[in-house]
């Protein structure tokens, strides 16, 4: 199988409300940024384009169609779209390169969640016959999961607060972060419950924005002459949808994906984990088999800024950035989708 490298990445500064800026205007600066990193003129300079977005966040059928406007008009391009986080657009693009139909691919994800109430919108992602009619929102579902972890003694509220403290602190060095700063565990624990046992600080913010990435064969990456990181393993697995039919205190699909991606095949210097709620970071760290030697979420993770439909791709991008900057030799990126971590993707990146 052909070796595939990440060669460029950019993401928006996470903001709670991008105002009058539309989706295309959110995407275009990120595309331009990755073109600039590689000296490309436009999307015509890559062989394949794939994006991830969700119609419902925009409140329109075919909302992603306008995204194509960000790519230029003629000639027509080889292009595809997943109604998923763009981490899965990365996966589809890698298949295209592996089969020899492309040597390079542009991937982007975007959303503008601010016009709607995201937790309520996503409640309509639940089983339409049994769960969606309850209007069970995703924060409440995550709270149920946290409650199970606490009740079984697998996680403590203090540990959850420590995750938030580290996220905010790491985010101080991340210019794209939405929430950053020095906070103390005690101050966090003194906060009132939001959806018990979750405090507001245990929940990710909702951010408007986009992220873009370029991947290529090693030959193409070398021809561009820019530093790159190899994707040495990638896999994703899904679990049963119904929260009553799986163990919410574990992430079996993450374990399966981590094994298939070869996470345990070497030391992991850094990991970017897509954990929208503090307790999920602890749970996922265990499922990924990561020990104390691994720096978790050096960017602050999605607790510091959460670009819906692009956060998973951004995790891969963050690991890439640190590897090419020489801060890490081998890293793990994780993306999640669905209520209570239903679907998980794991990628291993290595420097050359």
């Amino acid at each position, binding site marked *: 199988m052909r070796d595939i490298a990440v060669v460029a990445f950019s993401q928006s500064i996470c903001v709670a409300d991008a105002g009058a800026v539309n989706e295309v205007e959110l995407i275009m600066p990120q595309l331009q940024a990755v073109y600039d990193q590689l000296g490309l003129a436009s999307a015509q300079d890559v062989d394949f384009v794939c994006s991830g977005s969700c119609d419902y966040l925009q409140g329109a059928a075919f909302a992603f169609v306008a995204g194509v406007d960000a790519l230029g008009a003629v*000639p027509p*391009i080889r292009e595809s779209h997943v109604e998923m986080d763009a981490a899965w657009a990365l996966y589809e693009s890698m*298949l295209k390169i592996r*089969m020899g139909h492309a040597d390079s691919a542009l991937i982007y994800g975007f959303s503008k969640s601010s016009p709607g109430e995201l937790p309520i*919108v996503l409640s309509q992602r639940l089983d339409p016959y049994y769960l969606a009619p309850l209007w069970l929102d995703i924060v409440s579902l995550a709270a149920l999961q946290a409650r199970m972890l606490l009740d079984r003694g697998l996680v403590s509220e203090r540990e959850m607060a420590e995750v938030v403290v580290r996220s905010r602190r790491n985010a101080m060095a991340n210019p794209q972060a939405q929430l950053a700063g020095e906070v103390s565990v005690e101050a966090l624990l003194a906060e009132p419950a939001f959806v018990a046992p979750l405090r507001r600080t245990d929940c990710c913010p909702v951010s408007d924005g986009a992220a873009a990435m370029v991947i290529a064969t090693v030959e193409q990456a070398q021809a561009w002459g820019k530093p790159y990181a190899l994707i040495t393993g990638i896999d994703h697995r899904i679990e049963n949808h119904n929260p009553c039919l799986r163990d919410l205190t574990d992430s079996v699909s993450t374990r399966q994906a981590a094994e298939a991606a070869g996470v345990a095949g070497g030391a992991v210097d850094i990991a970017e984990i897509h954990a929208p709620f503090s307790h999920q970071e602890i749970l996922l760290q265990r499922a990924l088999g990561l020990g104390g030697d691994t720096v978790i979420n050096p960017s602050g993770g999605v607790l510091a800024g959460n670009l819906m439909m692009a956060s998973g791709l951004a995790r891969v991008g963050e690991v890439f950035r640190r590897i090419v900057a020489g801060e890490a030799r081998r890293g793990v990126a994780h993306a999640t989708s669905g209520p209570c971590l239903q679907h998980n993707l794991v990628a291993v990146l290595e420097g050359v």
Partner: protein
Amino acid sequence: MAELAAVVGIGQTRYKTRRGDVSMAGLLREAVDRALVDAGVEFADIDAVIIGKAPDMFEGVVMPESYLADALGAVGKPMMRVHTAGSVGGSTALVAASHVQSGTFKRVLAVTYEKQSESNAMWALSTPQPFAVHLNAGAGGYFAPIIREYIRRSGAPYNVGIKVAVKDRLHGARNPLAHLQLPDITEQEVEDSMMLWDPLRFLEACPSSDGACAMVISAADSVTGTKPPAWIRGGAMRSEPTMFAGREEVSPRAGRDCAADVYAQAGITHPRKDLDCAEIYVPFSWYEPMWLENLGFAGEGEGWKLTMEGATSLDAGGDIPWNCSGGVLCSNPIGASGMIRFAEAARQVRGDAGNHQVEGARLAMGHAYGGGAQFFAMWVVGADKP
């Protein structure tokens, strides 16, 4: 470099206006179970599941693949959701094929559906967006002016669309799965039906259907089942924006480029001669002559002549039958419609198309388009292993 892949199992539901007797999962399982039986495999033999459908608003369920994972046997496996507008059925087949052609998996399940009776597609397509052309009247209203421009340029007689409407319904009468069953339809009846979007009459438009279509795609060394495999000889996708200055809307370049790509992969130099039949996305009658030209089956301005001569009709013994299954004009569960085209092309080269079989078909094309005729997905399948 791509690994060889083939369709080894196909399953479809019967298409109809409303399937109130089954859930979405139940609808999908009808098609999936049939595809697995056709391939002689079980869920345990499937490595990954790739699902496609048109906008989530058509049923009112956000990213429904999450809820469908269990019913589709995807638990513990990779599952991917494709959405490329009306072309999604074709795109999903191609994305599924890439799971095998990349050498990553041995056998995958591809499935697409639409349960349009759950919601109202006309409404779902008409939510206004800032700074975008507002569509109050659904897809027909969008395409009618483009069709009128085709008629103006080509000088085609007024009844070409009527002829297509009758031809595809007679084809559909041979296919027990087709939604519209109109074995006695006449040109007069089509002409007398209500004008919806001039020049498109009621009977020149596709129905709105519930239904699902599934395929099992295997690597060459993992072929199963008792029927011959349909070898994937080429696959291509192209996209262009909905609007830009100077856009050729009658014969979009994305369609022409996509066809040229897939023909080159399959070694096709003369599509009308080299292909035995084709399943082409024709939701409105006039798109048959327009796509005949766009896809190179006829020269510019000449497509309508093939239609009028009966070249695309199985009943008239035409040399290049189009949409022997009845096509989109007979059944249109939107998210599945593209995959039905791809699957029906595969049925033809497997010699398994029942009463709408083209005698001795060896090479067939499947085609799908979506959005403002801006997203294209195509494949060519053959009986002969390349």
